């Protein structure tokens, strides 16, 4: 799949104590991705909205990159999705 090279909207659901959330936040920052972070413990309605987009998997971090939703992803998985936004549309 290829997209235009517009930056995707990125929404990151996190929990304050969660080491995998810290890792993913760091990865997105290192990749110079602009993202909105939602603290699941501090944002009313956030748990429900996360469950709605990720198939009911109660898991943090969950990240939505454009239309793609990844649950507790590894760096390679995130990079693969980000890569689709760096390929010029044909």
């Amino acid at each position, binding site marked *: 799949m290829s997209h235009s090279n517009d930056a995707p909207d990125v929404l990151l659901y996190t929990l304050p*104590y969660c080491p995998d959330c810290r890792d993913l936040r760091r990865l997105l920052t290192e990749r110079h991705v602009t993202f909105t972070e939602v603290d699941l*413990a501090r944002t009313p309605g956030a748990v429900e909205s996360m469950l709605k987009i990720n198939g009911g998997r*109660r898991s943090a971090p969950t990240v939505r990159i454009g239309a793609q939703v990844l649950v507790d992803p590894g760096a390679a998985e995130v990079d693969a999705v980000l890569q689709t936004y760096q390929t010029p549309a044909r």
Partner: protein
Amino acid sequence: MELEYRLLTPGERWPDDAASLAAAIRSQGPFQPVVEMAGPELWAHDAAVGLTSHARLAPYPAQSYESLIAPPGYAPRMTDRDRDTALPFQRAVEIRTSAAPDSDPTTVALFHATVTDGLWWLLGGFLADPYRRTVWGWRRWRGDQPLATHAAETAQHLAAARREGGPA
């Protein structure tokens, strides 16, 4: 019959909305709880099964974790990552579920485990389990067995305690 767990957590306050905790619980078990919070107290009540869990947020007594795991205390059951990435404890949460003596122990234990699991997921930390004399890390708690197995094991321990005349 009363069940209890103790959560040692880096969280300093309850989640900001009760609905988020209710959703976190609902997503993991066959329950439809309503959650209410008032100051340091929290209740999760499911009218359909007639069960209520009560949680109380209290300051973390210094060295509680170290005291718990000092021999012959509780066995730590956690991954290296659970241990290595843990944040300092700030609060201790006592979670209790009370039920009538004729209640099904496995259902009560599952409700207790599911409510605790939802709170724990949002707050983080380690769980002290008096029935198995274990301090659980999250990855082992969720990775080793499903909540239904936790509940079944807890119910077995309760039944054994009753047979021996101990507290149940």
